[in-house]
């Protein structure tokens, strides 16, 4: 009897989760953030339901602050794989002038991501939403179940989670309640890149190093997009860099790197001594800030 490799075992577990949700919920949806984890999650879904099409739509919460290359990639990718794509923006907040420079990152995130997400889930009547979050990303995520129950306000109660044993998931919800489902719970950042290499999965070119115009502010590399306000004396300069994780441009820093292929990224990852979300401003504006945002309904 053969045994599976680590990646094969993760794949089998994720496919089981994807199928379980498609079978047990009335209206599932897959949150698609355009990043590498979403790319892997979509590939796993394609495998889970092959040769049928995905039995649920993809939903992108567009804050309007995403990288141009991300949006281009999204539109091209979804057409190529024949996925149904829904895009939701909190237009009210945008019209009222919500931006991170004026509101601060926390409030901006609350309006353009969390509120937008909750509104989109309610409007679509979705009772289950897949997300590509992984437990190794952040310590409150390390505590989250594969099936994460949300009350009718979309809130998470980390102290009172449903026990989750074996692969027997409790999918029962009342009207208005929902489950966030994390098929990649047990994947690490390195697993994701190794799988991208193995499966030849397309990802946004922003992950690969090339010279890009950046504002260098202390240790941070800030992308020049969406009219970022410059400090006196600052001017964009070309820096060899890449993105390790993708979010909104004002809140996602680049890292200095020459890794311009997937194997080079994997080699670089093995040497990394800094965590993946370090460049995500929103995770660090307060102790336990990811946990607080998650409780309020953030992914």
């Amino acid at each position, binding site marked *: *009897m*053969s045994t*599976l490799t*680590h990646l*094969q*075992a993760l*794949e*089998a*577990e994720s*496919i*089981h989760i994807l*199928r*379980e949700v*498609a*079978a047990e919920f009335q209206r599932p949806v897959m949150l698609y953030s355009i990043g590498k984890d979403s790319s892997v999650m979509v590939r796993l879904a*394609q*495998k*889970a*339901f*092959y*040769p*049928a*099409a995905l039995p649920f739509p993809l939903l992108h919460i567009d804050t309007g602050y995403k990288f141009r290359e991300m949006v281009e990639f999204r539109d091209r990718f979804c057409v190529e794989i024949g996925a149904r794509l829904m895009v939701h923006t909190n237009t009210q907040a945008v019209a009222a002038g919500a931006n991170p420079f004026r509101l601060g990152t926390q409030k901006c995130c609350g309006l353009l991501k969390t509120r937008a997400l909750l509104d989109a889930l309610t409007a679509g009547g979705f009772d289950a939403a897949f997300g590509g979050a992984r*437990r*190794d990303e952040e*310590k*409150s995520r*390390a*505590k989250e179940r594969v099936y994460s129950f949300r009350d009718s306000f979309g809130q998470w109660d*980390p*102290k009172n*989670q*449903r*026990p*989750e*044993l*074996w*692969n*027997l998931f*409790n999918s*029962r*919800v*009342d009207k208005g309640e929902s489950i966030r489902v994390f098929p990649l*719970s*047990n994947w*690490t950042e*390195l*697993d994701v890149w190794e799988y991208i290499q193995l499966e030849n999965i397309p990802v946004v070119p922003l992950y690969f190093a090339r010279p890009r115009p950046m504002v260098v502010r202390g240790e941070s590399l800030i992308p020049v997009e969406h009219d970022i306000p410059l400090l006196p004396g600052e001017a964009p300069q070309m820096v060899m860099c890449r993105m390790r994780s993708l979010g909104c441009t004002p809140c996602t820093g680049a890292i200095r790197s020459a890794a311009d292929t997937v194997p080079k990224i994997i080699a670089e990852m093995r040497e*990394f*001594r*800094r*965590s993946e979300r*370090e460049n995500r401003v929103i995770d660090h504006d307060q*102790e*336990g800030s990811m*946990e607080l945002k998650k409780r309020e309904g953030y992914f």
Partner: protein
Amino acid sequence: MRFTTAGSVDDGKSTLIGRLLYDSQTVYEDQLAGIRKATKAHGGLDLSLLTDGLRAEREQGITIDVAYRYFSTPRRKFIIADTPGHEQYTRNMATGASTADLAIVLIDARHGVLAQSRRHAFIATLLGIRHLVVAVNKMDLMEYREEVFREICGDFGRFAAQIGNPPDLEFIPLSALCGDNVVRRGDRMPWYRGPALLEHLETVPLAAEDHPVGLRLPVQYVIRPDQDFRGLAGQLASGAIRPGDLVCVLPSGRQARVRSLVTRDGELAEAFAPMSVTVRLDEEIDVSRGDMLVSPADPPRRALRFEATVVWMNQKPAAADRPYLLKHTTQTLPARIVEIRHRVDIHSLSARPASELQLNEIGMVVVEAQRPLFIDPYRRNRFTGSFILLDPLSNETLGAGMIESAAEEAGDGASHSASISMEGQPEALWALARRLAERGHPVAVLPAQVLLVGPVGTALPAAASVELRFTAGDSPEEIFQELVRRGIVR
């Protein structure tokens, strides 16, 4: 490899995990900077802060819920289910243990074997973990004395011997704080010749199931993109499947051959547990979610009632005759507890009379489902031997069950029909036919020394759901017992 640890901050569990992550260079610099900032108050580097993730946990210095950690070495990748040790969080300990291959039971060298270590060892074993590592921690506080370690090994060994089906034990003396025998063998305990903890984790062979059962493929989802394609999708709970194999679909008992194993990357020549697969059969027979594909020669037991060990996880106690929902493999159906046999006193491992099971209590119960389930004992198959109980009103997960065996039930005959061939011993075949007929089974002896037998109280079936072959070496009594074991005869 997946392993579980249990304990509280006091016994150094978080420090031990922090040490494994730190010494295997899995901790990033910015995370270290974060804990340096948080430990400024009491100096030094508090590795335990790497693991407690929730604000309430950091506030109270305890672990409330399971946290999952990931690290890898060049030899293996590891997933740690880091679980709380307090009695009030037994359910979270069980959650972590349900998917683990190995458990590290932490013992404080100053205090010896405490209730918490015993509870963890018991729950780990109950949930089918076959490897226990007894990590005797804080040896630095006991001057690294061998006799301290030996005494704890003796105490724990005596306790473990009382657990039914005791697991493999490995004892390791260590100091998580100082790093002795965690990642590398230190020189402060020259009397210890075994491996360091990480060496053991990297090299321990993961035992296959003790008594593997045949094919079990619970159908999760039917993939039907068009009229011409019908794929049965599911994750193998055990066994293997190949194109051309004859499989039996339960509960209908219909048989078909596997036409192909379909994937996005081409067809497979073989699939085995725990792969997720899509199976096409050569005949259009009725199969839907909740059904199971099994090997005809080794089917699971059909049972309306069964005995199970249950870990209760809800404030509302378990009691007989309350309406529950039961989820087993890929089906959910009404069920009730018909009897609570006893509760287990986790300190003495003795059975105590009980009419209810309270939150975090463990007990032996008899469960009755609204329709028969196809089950294996949990010790033979974690996936066809486990179930959860749900509250139909509040939707909460109430309890987790591990099936021991089918319970005898009056008037419920076995469901399988079988064709039994016994080459070269016609007298034994006729004797067996008589014995089965006396028990009420319809029987017929067919040409070529084949005996067809059906369930009690039914007509003789046209075809058998199970085919069995015996050779001249098998005694009639052995054959009879085999039929009982397979649920063909009661």
